[in-house]
């Protein structure tokens, strides 16, 4: 008797759990679909953001005609919570206008409402690349990474970083100040390791052969800790 009660309770509880999980998954799928509609309605695609991989850019002209970073691997690159906030209140990430080495970034990225931002973030998280392995990089302020980033190479020549409370560094690249809130460590490592996959044409040099695999892992862990 006692046994049967417990047993049916187990059944009820697990059914409920399944229902909740199932419903959760169902609603986030629905949000992603809504996010895709918002993305399309606001014309975020086109020249601004490519959502279809793999990368096809071959020439400087292919890269220079783009008006914004490609998002076909956004689900691996960016953090969801960061996107939800940033899409409502887009602060400047690249000091200069996309692709420019002259003009200041006008900081005029379109803004979304909270609901739209949540839905679009949900959608962008579904855009992933098979070339990013997850669970490889943990954020870690490691001295070896710092050495490779600032001394062996000098990534700060093009990227802004925070050094003893001050922002320093070059202006052409996306700022890496607080990049750990924005970027996923596993993607940073993949970006350094397989530069042609994500961004075949860019002003940043290919570091393969100049940074070891360990250097790249240490640097990715370091940037993820920013």
């Amino acid at each position, binding site marked *: 008797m006692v046994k049967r009660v417990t047993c049916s309770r187990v059944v009820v509880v697990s059914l409920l759990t399944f229902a909740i999980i199932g419903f959760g998954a169902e609603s986030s799928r629905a949000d992603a679909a809504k996010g895709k509609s918002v993305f399309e309605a606001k014309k975020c695609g086109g020249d601004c953001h490519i959502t279809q991989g793999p990368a096809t850019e*071959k*020439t*400087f002209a292919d890269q220079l005609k783009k008006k914004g970073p490609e998002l076909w691997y956004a689900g691996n690159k960016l953090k969801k919570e960061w996107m939800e906030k940033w899409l409502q209140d887009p602060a400047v990430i690249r000091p*200069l206008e996309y692709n420019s*080495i*002259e003009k200041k970034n006008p900081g005029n990225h379109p803004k979304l409402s909270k609901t739209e931002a949540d839905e679009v973030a949900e959608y962008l998280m579904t855009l992933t690349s098979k070339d990013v392995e997850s669970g490889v990089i943990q954020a870690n302020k490691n001295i070896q990474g710092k050495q490779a980033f600032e*001394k*062996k*190479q*000098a990534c*700060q*020549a*093009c990227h802004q970083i925070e050094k003893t409370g001050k922002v*320093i*560094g*070059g*202006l*052409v690249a996306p700022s890496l100040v607080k990049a750990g809130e924005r970027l996923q460590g596993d993607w940073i490592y993949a970006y350094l390791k397989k530069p042609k996959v994500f961004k075949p044409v860019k*002003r940043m*040099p*290919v*570091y*393969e*052969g*100049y940074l070891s695999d360990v250097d790249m892992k240490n640097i990715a862990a370091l940037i993820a800790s920013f």
Partner: protein
Amino acid sequence: MNKKALYVIMIFAVMMTLGKGISYAVTAEENYKFYCTQCHGSTGKGDGINVTKDMAVTPRNHASAEDMSKLSDIDITNAITDGGPANSKSPLMPPFGKTLTADEIKDMVSYLRKLCNCTGGK
């Protein structure tokens, strides 16, 4: 094999080679504009937009015959390929050996010689 087929194959082969040439030929000037001016400046004077007051050493002035004649063609090749440290200079000069081909680097050395209107020392 008949003549017609042979012509078709020949034309196809010519198109293949031409196509290749066109899509891969990037002039030194184009490479310089895309990769180097961000630090070395649009006329090579070392005043690119990445050069903020935080940059510990200024990029070499490629338009200065005095500065550039101190470097041999091999020095220049090494700096472009493996970065500043190849010449015991700053890593603020990045390595482009995996970004540009050996031929493109060779062309770049000639291009820099035109910018400084000078020849190499040593």
